[in-house]
Structures are given as structure tokens and as C-alpha cells.
């Protein structure tokens, strides 16, 4: 189920609110209710994978709980590693096995059986949350094992962030799972945030998506011109931010409504000064996850510069792979890794701080150019398509017809593009500063909500981009 669907907005959501209200003083009961609702939410799209999801919850809770009875540390760690291995194996099988076997067959002319697996929705997100819990308890000893399976279940399955993040840590939710209060103030703030994300997704992200889709259709028809290619690439740059950040807004808002605090996931990423800065602002929960559970355990920068670069390379390769089983994601992640390593090697951030404003602006422009081009790689179905698209961005073919089409799309989507751009770079308009929602207030948001619902009723099915991961 998606938040931006009528079935959620007018079906499940009111049920959640009503039952949530009546159980507001009974945390345990509300936890059970939210867990069950989360299962309904998950199973709506693909019921058969609910068993896999359930297995992930039960196996992780059981193994971690069993590990708490181990007297020796190595046994505890062994159980932890076993639990993580099971998680990674499941993730590998469903996400990568088909692709790896197909690629092996292609590269070496083999005839290995290619498993016909379908990617379970949100598997990368909930698996990472499960691994985070297991690692924190068994390997890092940050907190004791949780006895109550409902709490662990709800931590992994909590529907607001289940399918597309943010990736939360158990420690973020631990106290709230124990005791929380649904205050009117927090509820209203959460509702506003949810509405803001809802409108952002429907009115802006889905609108600019039309431009991106058209650009790739034109590419396949060999009719993509330079100007439309740039428009398409910029539109996708906006779309992926608006789409993903809208999901995070809705998740954070829903969390607030039930008394949970979910971490922010974005901080004006398109205002980044460098590529490293970009990744400190983009999908922060993923970046921090890789930092805490891959980079630092590998030694981080404590062992020496060379090892630090190696660790960074591993992290970025994994970041790319996390997004999907495709060379495009691997190359996308690897190029980001290379850029981050180069920036670090040359001490770029210090150099920019000490340098003139012109240097800073020029590098900021380069950063955005890299981001836009790399989003093309990310969006493309394969490397060949990505290269053809990028070639179109620098080619003069079909210029005149392309210009007319670009004018048409610009004129039709000017408001979505301008507002999307402003929201992505302007601190006053960004949700991270929590000003916009408070400033425009309830009446305006309710009008926008009704308009958004009218877009949904109109029949646009709008899955979130990050559902694929």
C-alpha cells in the first residue's frame, strides 16, 4: 500500500487514527494494533511476501533473544553473526541472485539456472533495520536484547517507515515503544507534516515525473534532443528528491501522530557545496547506517589513509548495490565513491573554505552537474541507455523540434518545476526547517490536500521511486 493512495487516505489511515486515539493510554495494546496494521499495510501490495517479512522479524527477535542467555561473548557474537548472515542471505537471494546468475551466464557463456525471484517491497529497508538491531545488541552491546517480540516486530514493521525508510535504529524508538504519549500538539504537527508530504508527492513529484518519463520515451524513439534531455535530467533530479523526501515527510508525520520520533532523512541536499556534503544531506539515514555498520567496523580512518580510502570504496560500492541489482547502480555508487575519495585526498573542503567565493560557487556548480548526470545513470535501465541519454545532453540532433517540445513541457509544468526547485534549495521552504508548514497553516494545507485528492481521484497511480529498493 502507498500513502498516496485513496485506499490508505480514506481507508487505513482513519482506522489508525481512531484506534490510535482510543488506545492512547495503553501503549502495549497500541503496539499490537500498530503491528497488525503494519502487516495489513505491507501485505496489501504483495500478500505472499508477508511470510518472508514475518520470518525476518521472528528469526531476528528469536536469535537476539537467545543470545542474551549466552554467557560467553563469542557465543553472543556468533549468534549475532548468524542472524545477520540469514538476513543478508535473504536479501541477496531475493535482490541479487537472479541478476548475478544472469550476468554470469552472459559474461562467461554459462547456463546456470536463473532464479525467477520477485523483489519483495521494502526488503532493503526492513532488512537493514533488522541488521541494525542485531548488530547493536549482539556485536556492539549497546543495549540488552528485547524480550517483547511485539516491540521488535513493531520496530522492524512500523508501517510509516517500513517500505521506503527512513532507516531507523532501535535506540531511536526504544523508549517510545516502552512508553509514549499522544499529545494533541504532536499529533497536529504530525498531521501537518503528513499533509505536506502528501501534497508534495502528488502535486509536485508526480507532475515533474511526466517530464522524465517523456524524456526516456523520446530516447527510446531516438528523438531526444539536447534541450529536452537536460529538462528531463533536471526534472528527475527534482522528482527523486520530492518523491523520496515526501515519503520521509509522511513517515515522520505519521510517526509523530502516534508519538514516535523518526529521524530526518534530508537536509537541503541540492544546496551541497561538495559531493561529500551532498551525501551528508541526502538519505541521511542510509549514509549513517553505512558509516556505523560498515565503515567504522572496517576500521574507518583509524588504521591509515589507504585503508580509509579502501573502506570508503567498499561503502560506496555497497551503497550502489543497495539501490538495486543493476550495473547502473553499481557504477552510480562507484563514481560517487571515487568523487568522495578524490575530494578527501585533495582536501577539497578545507581548500574551498579558505578560497574565494568564486571557487566555492564554481565547485558547487560542478557538484550539481555531477549529481544531475549521475541521476541519469541512476534512472536509466542499463548503462547503454544511460550513455545514450548523456550523449543526447551534449548533442545538437533534433534541436528545433526538441526546443518546441521543451517549451511545451516547461509551460505546462512551470509551477511544479519552480516550486519543486524552491522547496529543494530554499531553507525557509524546506520541511527540515519546519517553517513552511507552520507558516502556511491548516487552511492552505487542507486546500492543497483536497486538490491532491482530486489528482488521485483523477486516476494517477503513483508508486514511490524508492519502493524499488
Amino acid at each position: 500500500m502507498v500513502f498516496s493512495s485513496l485506499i490508505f487516505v480514506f481507508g487505513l489511515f482513519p482506522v489508525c487514527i481512531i484506534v490510535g486515539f482510543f488506545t492512547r493510554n495503553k501503549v502495549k495494546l497500541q503496539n499490537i494494533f500498530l503491528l497488525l496494521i503494519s502487516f495489513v499495510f505491507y501485505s496489501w501490495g504483495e500478500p505472499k511476501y508477508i511470510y518472508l517479512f514475518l520470518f525476518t522479524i521472528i528469526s531476528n527477535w528469536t536469535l537476539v533473544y537467545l543470545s542474551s542467555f549466552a554467557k560467553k561473548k563469542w557465543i553472543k557474537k556468533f549468534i549475532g553473526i548468524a542472524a545477520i548472515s540469514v538476513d543478508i542471505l535473504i536479501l541477496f537471494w531475493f535482490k541479487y541472485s537472479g541478476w548475478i546468475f544472469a550476468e554470469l551466464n552472459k559474461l562467461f557463456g554459462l547456463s546456470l539456472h536463473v532464479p525467477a525471484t520477485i523483489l519483495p517491497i521494502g526488503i532493503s529497508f526492513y532488512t537493514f533495520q533488522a541488521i541494525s538491531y542485531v548488530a547493536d545488541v549482539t556485536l556492539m552491546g549497546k543495549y540488552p536484547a528485547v524480550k517483547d517480540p511485539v516491540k521488535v516486530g513493531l520496530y522492524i514493521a512500523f508501517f510509516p517507515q517500513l517500505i521506503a525508510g527512513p532507516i531507523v535504529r532501535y535506540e531511536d524508538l526504544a523508549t517510545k515503544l516502552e512508553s509514549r504519549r499522544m499529545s494533541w500538539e504532536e499529533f497536529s504537527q504530525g498531521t501537518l507534516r503528513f499533509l505536506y508530504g502528501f501534497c508534495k508527492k502528488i502535486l509536485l513529484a508526480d507532475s515533474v515525473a511526466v517530464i522524465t518519463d517523456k524524456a526516456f520515451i523520446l530516447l527510446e524513439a531516438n528523438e531526444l534532443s539536447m534541450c529536452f534531455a537536460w529538462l528531463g535530467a533536471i526534472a528527475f533530479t527534482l522528482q527523486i528528491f520530492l518523491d523520496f523526501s515526501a515519503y520521509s515527510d509522511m513517515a515522520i508525520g505519521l510517526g509523530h501522530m502516534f508519538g514516535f520520533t523518526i529521524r530526518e532523512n534530508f537536509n537541503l541536499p541540492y544546496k551541497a557545496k561538495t559531493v561529500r556534503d551532498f551525501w551528508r544531506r541526502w538519505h541521511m539515514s542510509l549514509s549513517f547506517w553505512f558509516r556505523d555498520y560498515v565503515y567504522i567496523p572496517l576500521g574507518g580512518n583509524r588504521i591509515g589513509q589507504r585503508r580509509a580510502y579502501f573502506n570508503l570504496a567498499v561503502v560506496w560500492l555497497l551503497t550502489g548495490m543497495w539501490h538495486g541489482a543493476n550495473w547502473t547502480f553499481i557504477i552510480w555508487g562507484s563514481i560517487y565513491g571515487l568523487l568522495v575519495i578524490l575530494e578527501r585526498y585533495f582536501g577539497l573542503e578545507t581548500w574551498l573554505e579558505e578560497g574565494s567565493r568564486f571557487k566555492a560557487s564554481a565547485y558547487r556548480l560542478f557538484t550539481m552537474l555531477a549529481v544531475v548526470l549521475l541521476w541519469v545513470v541512476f534512472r536509466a535501465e542499463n548503462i547503454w541507455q544511460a550513455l545514450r541519454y548523456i550523449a543526447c545532453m551534449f548533442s545538437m540532433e533534433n534541436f528545433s523540434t526538441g526546443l518546441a517540445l521543451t517549451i511545451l513541457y516547461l509551460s505546462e509544468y512551470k509551477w511544479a518545476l519552480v516550486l519543486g526547485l524552491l522547496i529543494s534549495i530554499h531553507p525557509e521552504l524546506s520541511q527540515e526547517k519546519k517553517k513552511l508548514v507552520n507558516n502556511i497553516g491548516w487552511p492552505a494545507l487542507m486546500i492543497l490536500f483536497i486538490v491532491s485528492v482530486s489528482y488521485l481521484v483523477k486516476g494517477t497511480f503513483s508508486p514511490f521511486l524508492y519502493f524499488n529498493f
Partner: protein
Amino acid sequence: MKKFFINKKLKLHTIICLAFITYICFYALMFFCSWFNSKEPSVRKASNAYFDNISFKQSYIDIYGFTQKTLGKRQIEKFTIFKNEYGKLVSPRAEISEQIIEQKLDEMMPIFQLLTEDNSSTKYIYLTSLLPIPNKEELPIGVDDATRENAEKLMRQLKNREINVLDIRGAKQIKAIPEEKRFYRSDHHWSNESAFATYQTIIEYLNENSILEEKLTVYTDSDFEEIRQENTFLGSYGVKVGEYYGGKDDFIFYAPTFDTNFEFYAYDAKGNLTKEKSGDWETALMDQEILQDPEYKNKYYAFLNTSSIESRIINKTAENQMKCLVISHSYGRPLCQYLALNFAEVRNLDPQEGRFQGNYLTYIEDYDPDYVIIFTEYEGEIIGNFKTSDQQEA
């Protein structure tokens, strides 16, 4: 570990109980999902059913249209429908190759050949279509439309094949109608004025060229009373964006002021009688329920008692005993109604995909009409399925 299992028996039971309860819960959940998707294993379909039944759906569509208008958008439905310069909603068409036109005409050729055989007493005419986008300049910059090019290509091939064409685009009656009134603003259909002008054009053409044995009466505006339902018609394009985007149309038809007596019969694809009416022109041929229902917006369906695969109109006060067969898509419905005033019987076959599935050749031979009007062109393209059984097998 052993100690754990001995001392924590209760916990173990709790785990087993929880696992069991969870299993039961999930089984119930699966049952619910299966039941919900029983008709088709697709959640999307279930969701769509929910969307379709949502309360105030049309109000939300009106809000959507109002928003689009406020934002100054000229396209709806992801660049398939545009507002032209005078506010009509139009659907630009892609260019069609000569080959595709040839194929379509090849399918129709046996019908033309049958109607031009030496021993055939039946006369025929191929009617061209009006074009809702005669000038590309009416559309926003960047929108391409090949309606005119397609129509020109088709006309060339029709002439090459020596098909008897009546080009209504050049008819004086059509030219007398202002361009913005030839089509409904909110619908893909031509207006009542265009249908009536075409009717007059056909009758005058028949009389001037002495095609039929008897001259036919040319009814003029003075023989009719204009029935106008103001601001009631929201057509196929308009329903997608509601009434605030492009506005509603007036629904107009011309009711004869002289005495008439008609019988109307409608048949389905299997030849079963589905509707039977009689009375004067308006009672027998216009769907009164649609006309009188203020909630029903697509008033075009009132013509010829909504959409039928085969319609038969018998004029009991006809001035002759001639029969006319009209093979036409939905544009033909008002046309048939007006033609019925001049013939003893008018039949209409709808050739659109999935509609009339019989053999046109045997139908014409069996019915033996005096006149056949082939009106299968729509915005410069031939639509419909005309393959004979031999062609279908091939």
C-alpha cells in the same frame, strides 16, 4: 542453553503461543486478501474499484479541472488532449503511414466492389470526416498533429481507387457553420449543427445527381424546432476534467414540426432485439431518460437511443419505400435520425472494434438497400473492423 529451556518454560510456551497466534492472524489476513481479490488476483483492481466508488468523485474531478485551469494548463490526460485556441478540447493524432491506409482500404474494398457491380441496384457514397484540428497553429507550441496530413493521404488513395466520395469538408452547409460550432467543446463528437448540415448536403447531393429514382424532400431549418438544453452536456473529454476546465456545452437537436410516426428497433451483436420504441420522431428516436436526467452529462447518448450495434428506424409516414443503410461510427447517430425523415427505413451498423461482427457483404445482399452511406472516417482515419471472414482467416 539447556538451563534456559528448563527455567524458562513459560517463555518457551509464550513463544509457541505467540507464533501460533501470529500464524492464525496471518492466515486470517491472507484469507481477507484472497477474498478481496477473488475476482482478479490484483490489488490494484481492488483499489480501482474503491476509487470508482468514491463519494463525490465528479466533484473531485471538477476540482482537478479547476486547478488545471487556474495553473493555465492546456493539456490533460498526459499530453493526449489539448485545449485549442477557442477552448475546445481536441486530441492530436499521430501520422499514419500510406501502408496502414492501404491495408484499411483493402479491407473495405469488397464492400465497394459489391456496391459497384453492374447488376447492383444499390448506390453508395463514402463520406469524409470533419477535422476538429484543421490548423496546427491552434495548438500550443510543441504539439504535433497530423490530422490534416492523414486526411489528405486518405483522400488521395480513395480517389486512386475511384471510390465515390462526398467530401463534406467542402460542403457549403458545413462552411456556413462557424468553426467553433462544428464540434462540441467538451466532446470528441461533431455537433448537432454539423450532423444536420451533413444530412442536408447528402440529400441535396442525391437530388442534384439524380442518384435515386425519386427526388427527396430537402427539409430546412424552418421545418424544425430547435430544442436546446443549456449548459447540460459534458462530453468524453469534458468528464476527464470536469465542468470548470472547459465548460459545458449546450445540447441541441432539431425536432420536426410536422407530423411524424416512427418505429425504432435496436439489436445486439448476436442479433437479439434489445430495444423497441415507437411514436413521433423525438419520442421514438431520442432517449428521453437521458434528456430528462439532470445528472446524466453525456447527452450525446440520447441520439438514437444510446449506442446500439444495429439500429433500425422505420418511418411510417415516409414519402417513398426506399431503404438506406448507414455504416457508421457514433457520428452517424444524429445523421441517421435526420436521414430517417426521407426514407421508409434507415438501418445503422456500427463498425467500431467489438461492435458489428457480421459480414457486411451478406448483410447488404440480404437487406438490398437502395442507398448505402459509408461513414467510417474519423478525424482523417478509417476506424472499424471490415474484414470479411476470408480476410480474417488469411
